[in-house]
């Protein structure tokens, strides 16, 4: 980031001779080109962390999509009798001097004699799916609850928001554990639990946006024209409340991936042989002293994925939240 203020690009340049019709047209074209979305995109692209996060996420998505091409083995294939490998064998990388007569295993062999690298690669699919599905569900439910709460007000608002307060009073992982305890273990139930735990965040964000937007003139105008409340909510208010939801959602995905991995680590989430990073870590945690590679790589994978969403979310917040004007401090001190 530079300290110099940005040139006011969206204002037609002063050098344009205003009497020239053609130039005026051109300047209008410039003006039109700066749509809200384009402005937003430009602001996002100015955030270093958003770009870095976005790039990492892009790579992860590619890895997830092309997992069968990248992974040398099937993630659930047991290699006994297929190759001369031992249980929990250390990584064998040709570039690092591993004899070429042995099969190459970038991240070694796991406790069930499977290729760890292939499992970590396929784990990307599981984790991204977890992140998007849980937060998607939480956003939909939270948005509806928050919108109804904020728009309707009164006792309904009170009931919904107090319920959200109670849900937020529990540390999220603990509540998720308690819910999985009731629903029964497994990936699906743990996803549902994490989604439920995350609902209050979006309900609050949405409610706050609705409260501030619903008093604005353009909403008043729609109401005066006889638009139905539902239409106003979805067509007038929701698009204007999107940016805090996007920011929260991106950061929420990071948290959801961490929580899901923790549940799987404890044996409550994804069950073996699913190649899920948390459960891979959990099943080998007692072997950390003898086979550290089996613990190291899945953890790094979790960290990189979560970091990508965190960076992206941070960058989006800095770009989309007009209240944050950090550059001011630099000028003062």
């Amino acid at each position, binding site marked *: 980031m530079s300290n110099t203020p940005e040139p006011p690009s969206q204002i037609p340049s002063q050098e344009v001779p205003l009497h020239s019709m053609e130039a005026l047209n051109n300047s209008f074209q410039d003006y039109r080109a700066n749509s809200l979305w384009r402005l937003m995109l430009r602001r996002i692209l100015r955030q270093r962390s958003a770009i870095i996060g976005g790039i990492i996420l892009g790579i992860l998505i590619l890895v997830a999509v092309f997992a069968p091409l990248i992974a040398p083995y099937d993630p659930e294939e047991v290699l006994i009798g297929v190759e001369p490998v031992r249980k929990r064998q250390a990584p064998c990388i040709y570039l690092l001097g591993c004899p070429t007569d042995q099969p190459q295993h970038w991240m070694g062999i796991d406790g069930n004699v499977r290729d760890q690298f292939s499992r970590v690669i396929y784990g990307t699919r599981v984790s991204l799916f977890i992140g998007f599905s849980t937060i998607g569900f939480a956003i939909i439910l939270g948005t509806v609850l928050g919108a109804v709460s904020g728009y309707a007000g009164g006792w309904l608002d009170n009931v919904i928001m107090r319920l959200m307060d109670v849900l937020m009073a*529990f540390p999220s992982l603990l509540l998720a554990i308690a819910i999985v305890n009731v629903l029964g273990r497994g990936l699906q139930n743990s996803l549902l639990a994490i989604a439920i735990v995350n609902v209050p965040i979006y309900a609050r964000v949405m409610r706050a946006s609705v409260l501030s937007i619903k008093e604005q003139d353009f909403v008043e105008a729609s109401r005066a024209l006889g638009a139905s409340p539902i239409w106003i909510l979805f067509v007038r208010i929701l698009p204007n409340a999107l940016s805090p939801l996007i920011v929260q959602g991106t950061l929420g995905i990071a948290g959801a991936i961490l929580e899901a991995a923790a549940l799987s680590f404890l044996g409550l989430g994804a069950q073996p042989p699913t190649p899920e990073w948390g459960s891979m870590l959990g099943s080998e945690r007692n072997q950390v002293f003898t086979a550290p590679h089996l613990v190291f790589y899945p953890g790094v994978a979790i960290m990189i994925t979560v970091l990508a969403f965190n960076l992206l979310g941070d960058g989006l917040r800095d770009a989309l939240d007009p209240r944050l004007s950090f550059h001011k401090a630099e000028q003062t001190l």
Partner: protein
Amino acid sequence: MFQYIIRRLLLAIPVLFGILLVTFILARLIPGDPCKAILGEKATQAVCDRFIRERGLDQPIYVQLGIYIRDVARGDFGNSIRYSRPVSIILIERLPLTVELGVIATLLATLIGIPMGILSAVYSNSFVDVITMVTANIGVSMPVYWLGLMLAYVFALLLKDTPLWLPPSGRLTAGLVSTPFYQVYNLTAGDPESFRFHVYEFIGNMVVINSLITGNWKILWDAIQHLILPSVALCTIPMSIIARMTRSSMLEVLGLDYIRTARAKGMPKSKVVLKHAFRNAMLPVFTIIGLQLGTIFAGAVLTETIFGLAGVGRMLFEAITARDYPIVQAFTLVIAMGYVGMNLLVDISYVFIDPRIKLR
């Protein structure tokens, strides 16, 4: 001021009631026969009938809720299935460790996180800023249990036979026993059922505090050594969050006019930052510290499991695996209550941090 505190206290009541309600509902939602779930699969029909009558499970649901609240108020959480002992006694044995671990982790997180954030804000966009924020971003993205395992691997195995070696698990080295202070000083704790006895036992079970009271430095050092790795693992996420919050809060305050005024009248930068800016930037940071308690409690489940510490978190995990529902219910309740109570304390302490609140 008192009005503010009273309003905060009153606002906490519905939340506490809600927590009771949620734990009550969660216990009722457990599929299957409640008697078999609580007394175990081997319970006979006669035992079950008596259990259902005693627990009031044949009563309407609102009466059951009343009974539940009454039992909780009395500190009666029922008996553990696995240990056949009152859950409240198990809680007194297990909670002290988690409290110690949580306090140390919170202190570490605060004492490292706040200076990190201040440095980062004061030298924003410098090398220091980049390094601290990269650290904070990575810290917040790390799975606690993974960090714990890696720390154990590095400090207990790779650094073996060096002065930096740290024990990978347990509370005290095998062979060392921490004698409770009331036995050392021959205090009569009284009736094992009494409140004073429980308090004594609770304090006695906090090994660090207990060895400080009894002056047993060997045990103190050993206990601290055992707590270093778990608390470092546990504090990483809160530390990173506190550092980031401090940075953004400081940046906001440092941009305000009164800071420029202070600088313009020739006040040294360090004084402006620490006295003028930091005090005002602290409020949101303080809120975040309170909220981090949730992370700490949840992290305790994972950290204690990894480091073989017999605290509330590990107990909760074991209870879940063993389907020991009374323990799960009671521990979830206690942790949620502790979380709400802590945030209430933070809210109330605003009065002392921010004098403006007094005027309201």
